[in-house]
C-alpha cells in the first residue's frame, strides 16, 4: 500500500524556502476517527487542500458470511454492523426476510420492535452527541453525559434480550421472547431520563458561544448536493429536505404513529447536530405512543413458522430509516435456507463518501468535526 498519495510527493522541496503542502495521516489510530478510519489530509498551513479517506480496516465480509449461513444464524452478523443501534439492523434484516418469505408478524411484536428500534435510535444519537462534543474538545464531559442515558437504555436491553450491544432479539416472524414484567414502567422512566439528558446537552452545548462559533456555517450542504452525494438520514434532513423513510415509504406500524420530521435549514454542522437532538426527542414520543397503544398481551412470534426457514425465490429492496440514514437490505433468495445475496446499503458508507467534498477548504480542526458530524460507525461502513 502506498502511504502517501504519489502526486504530492514531488512537491516537497527540501532545499527551498517556499512553503510547501504537507500531508498528515489521520488515523487509523487517532482519538477522533471513531474507530479504525483513516484519512490523509494534505494541508497548506492549517488549511485542508485535499483529503483522501481510507476505509476497510473493519471489513468482516458480512455479505459473504450471510450467503453462507442459515437465515437465523445470520442475525448475529447483522446487529454487528451498526453496533450502536443493533436493534435497527436486526429490524431491517428481519423485515427483508419476512418480505421475501411472506411471513406475518403479530401486532404486539410490531409494537415492541418499534419501541426497540427507537430506543436504539436514541442510543445512537446520544453516542453522537457525546462523541461530537469530544471532537470539539469538550474534555470528556459531553461523553459522560451521553453515556449516562446509554447505560440506562442498555440496561433495559439487557433485561429484555439478555445482551446489551448485540441483543439478537428479533427473529424473522417476530421476537425471541416477550417483554419482562414491569417493562412499561421502566421504559417510561428511561424516557424521562432521556429527555433530561437532552436538556443537559442543550445546556452544555447549544447555547455555548464557542460551540456555535465552531459549528455554524461550517460546510453547508445544499439539497441538490446532498441528493447527488446520496446523503440520507439526519444529513439530508439538515439541508431542509423533509424526507424520512418512516414517512415516505412507510414500514411496520409507523403510519399509525404521530411524530414530526425535524429539519434544518442550511445543512451545516450545527444543523446536523440539532436535527439529531430533535430526532431523539421525537423517538421518545414514538415510544410513548407505542407504550400507550400496544396490545397488553398476545403472541410475539408467528406460530406458523416452519422448523427450517426456506424462503421462496424472490428479490426485494427493503429500506428502513436507520439511525444514520437509509439502512436498506437488497435481498435475493433462491428457495434454499440461505440467502443467495444480501447487500447492505449502509448509510454511513454513503455519507462518508461525501467527506472529501465537505472537508476541502476548511481548517484541520474543522475537518475533524465535519467527520464527527457525519456520525460514522465503522462496523457499518466497512461491513
Amino acid at each position, binding site marked *: 500500500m502506498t502511504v502517501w498519495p504519489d502526486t504530492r510527493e514531488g512537491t516537497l522541496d527540501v532545499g527551498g524556502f517556499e512553503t510547501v503542502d504537507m500531508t498528515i495521516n489521520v488515523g487509523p489510530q487517532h482519538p477522533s476517527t471513531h474507530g479504525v478510519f483513516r484519512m490523509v489530509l494534505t494541508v497548506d498551513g492549517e488549511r485542508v487542500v485535499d483529503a483522501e479517506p481510507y476505509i476497510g480496516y473493519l471489513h468482516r465480509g458480512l455479505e459473504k458470511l450471510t450467503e453462507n449461513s442459515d437465515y437465523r444464524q445470520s442475525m448475529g452478523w447483522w446487529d454487528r454492523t451498526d453496533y450502536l443501534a443493533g436493534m435497527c439492523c436486526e429490524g431491517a434484516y428481519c423485515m427483508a426476510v419476512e418480505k421475501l418469505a411472506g411471513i406475518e408478524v403479530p401486532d404486539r411484536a410490531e409494537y415492541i420492535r418499534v419501541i426497540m428500534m427507537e430506543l436504539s435510535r436514541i442510543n445512537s444519537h446520544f453516542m453522537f452527541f457525546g462523541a461530537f462534543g469530544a471532537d470539539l474538545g469538550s474534555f470528556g464531559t459531553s461523553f459522560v453525559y451521553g453515556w449516562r442515558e446509554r447505560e440506562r437504555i442498555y440496561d433495559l436491553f439487557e433485561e429484555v434480550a439478555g445482551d446489551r450491544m448485540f441483543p439478537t432479539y428479533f427473529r424473522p416472524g417476530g421476537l425471541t421472547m416477550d417483554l419482562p414484567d414491569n417493562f412499561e414502567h421502566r421504559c417510561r422512566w428511561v424516557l424521562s431520563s432521556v429527555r433530561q439528558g437532552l436538556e443537559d446537552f442543550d445546556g452544555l452545548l447549544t*447555547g455555548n458561544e464557542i460551540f456555535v462559533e465552531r459549528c*455554524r456555517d461550517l460546510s453547508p450542504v445544499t439539497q441538490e448536493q446532498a441528493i447527488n452525494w446520496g446523503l440520507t438520514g439526519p444529513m439530508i434532513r439538515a439541508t431542509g429536505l423533509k424526507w424520512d423513510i418512516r414517512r415516505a415509504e412507510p414500514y411496520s406500524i409507523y403510519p399509525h404513529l404521530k411524530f414530526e420530521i425535524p429539519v434544518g435549514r442550511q445543512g451545516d454542522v450545527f444543523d446536523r447536530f440539532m436535527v439529531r437532538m430533535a430526532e431523539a426527542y421525537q423517538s421518545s414520543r414514538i415510544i410513548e405512543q407505542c407504550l400507550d397503544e400496544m396490545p397488553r398481551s398476545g403472541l410475539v412470534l408467528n406460530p406458523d413458522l416452519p422448523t427450517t426457514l426456506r424462503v421462496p425465490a424472490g428479490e426485494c429492496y427493503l429500506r428502513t430509516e436507520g439511525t444514520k440514514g437509509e439502512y436498506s437490505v437488497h435481498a435475493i433468495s433462491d428457495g434454499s435456507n440461505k440467502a443467495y445475496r444480501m447487500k447492505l446499503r449502509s448509510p454511513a458508507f454513503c455519507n462518508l463518501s461525501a467527506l472529501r467534498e465537505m472537508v476541502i477548504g476548511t481548517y484541520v480542526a474543522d475537518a475533524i468535526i465535519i467527520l464527527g458530524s457525519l456520525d460514522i460507525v465503522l462496523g457499518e461502513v466497512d461491513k
Partner: protein
Amino acid sequence: MDFADPFFGISWLDALIRLVIVVGVMTLVVMYLIYGERKLLGRFQQRKGPSYTGPAGLFQSFADAIKLVGKEDLRPRNADRWVFEFAPFAAFIPVFVILVTLPFAQDWGVRNLGLGLFFVFAVLGLNIVGILMAGLGSGNKYALLGGVRAAAQMISYEIPLVISLLAVAMVAGTLNLNEIVLLQENRPFVLIQPLAFVIFFTAMLSELHRAPFDIPVAESEISGGYFIEYSGIRWSMFQLTEYAALWAFSIFGAVVFLGGWAFPFGLEWGWGWQLFLTIFKSFFLIFLVMWMRATVPRLRIDQLMNFCWKVLIEVSFLLIIVNGFFLYYGWSETILGLVNWAGAIVFIGLVYSRGIRRSRAREYVGTYRNPEAATP
C-alpha cells in the same frame, strides 16, 4: 526591601536553600494539582476520579510518577537528537525562573526583585522556546503543527497579558510585586480593575494552553501536539511544566489582582495566615481553570487569533487609555472602578450573547421543549 536573612548572611547559600525549598514544594503541589484536576473533572463528569491508590486515591500521582520514570525513553529515528532531548528542560526553565520572584507571603520568596512584574513578562517570552524546540525536533508533523500553533498563540496572547498587567502597574505605580501586594491591604485590585482581570485570565488560559485555548495540544485534532513523541520521564517533564506554569500563573494572578496575602486582614495575622491566603487564592484561580476545561469546547486557531487581535488587544489598549486619563487628572478611584466594572460586564455580555444570537437554537429547541411546535 530585604527578605529575612537567616542563613548567616551568605547570600548564595541563602538563595540556594530558598530555591531548593521552592522546587520541592512545587513538585509536591504539581503532584496534587494533577490529582485534584482528575478528581474535579471526575466530579464535573459524574464519576469519582482516582480512588484506588491510597485513601481516596491520594497517592495516584506518585504511582504515576514512578511508572513514568520506569518507562522507556523513546526517541524517533528522524528526530533531531539534541533539540528533542533538551526541549523539556528548555520548557521548564522559564516557569521555574518565574517562581524565583513570586512572593508567597511577606518576606517569603526567593528574591524580591525591584522589577518583579517586568521580570515575569521578560521570562514569559522564553516560555515558547521549549515548545518550539519540541515541535521542531520531534520529526513529527503533528508536533510541528502543534509547535506552530503554540508559537502563534503564545506570541499573540502575550500582548494583552502584558497590557492588562501594565494597567495594574499604572494604578499601583510600582513594578515590585511585594509593594503591589502591600498596596492591596484594603481592597484587591480586581475590584478596581475587573476588566484587566478578565483579560489577564483569558490570556493566561491561552498562555497555559488550557481549554478553550488548548489548540496546540488539541487531543482530538493533533493528539497531543508538540509532545506527541515524548514518553517516560521527558513526557512527565512537560506535564510538570504545564502544571507548574499553571500554579505559577495562579500565584501571580492572586498576588497582582486578588491581593495576595494582604487582603483581607493579612498583615497582622502572621505568616501562616498569609501563606494560606495566597495559596487559597491561587487555588481558586486554578479551580476556575479546571472548571473551564470541563465545560467548554475548543476554539479554532483562526477564531483564537481573531479574538486576540480584534477584541482583546483593542479592549486592553482602551483600558490603558482610560487608566491614563484617570491617573493624569487624579480622579477618584471609585469612579475608575465603576467604569471598569461597566466595561467588564459589557465585554463579557457581548461575548456571551453573540453565541445565543447566532445559534438560532430556539428554532430546534422548540421541537422538544414543546412537542407540538412545528419544525422550521
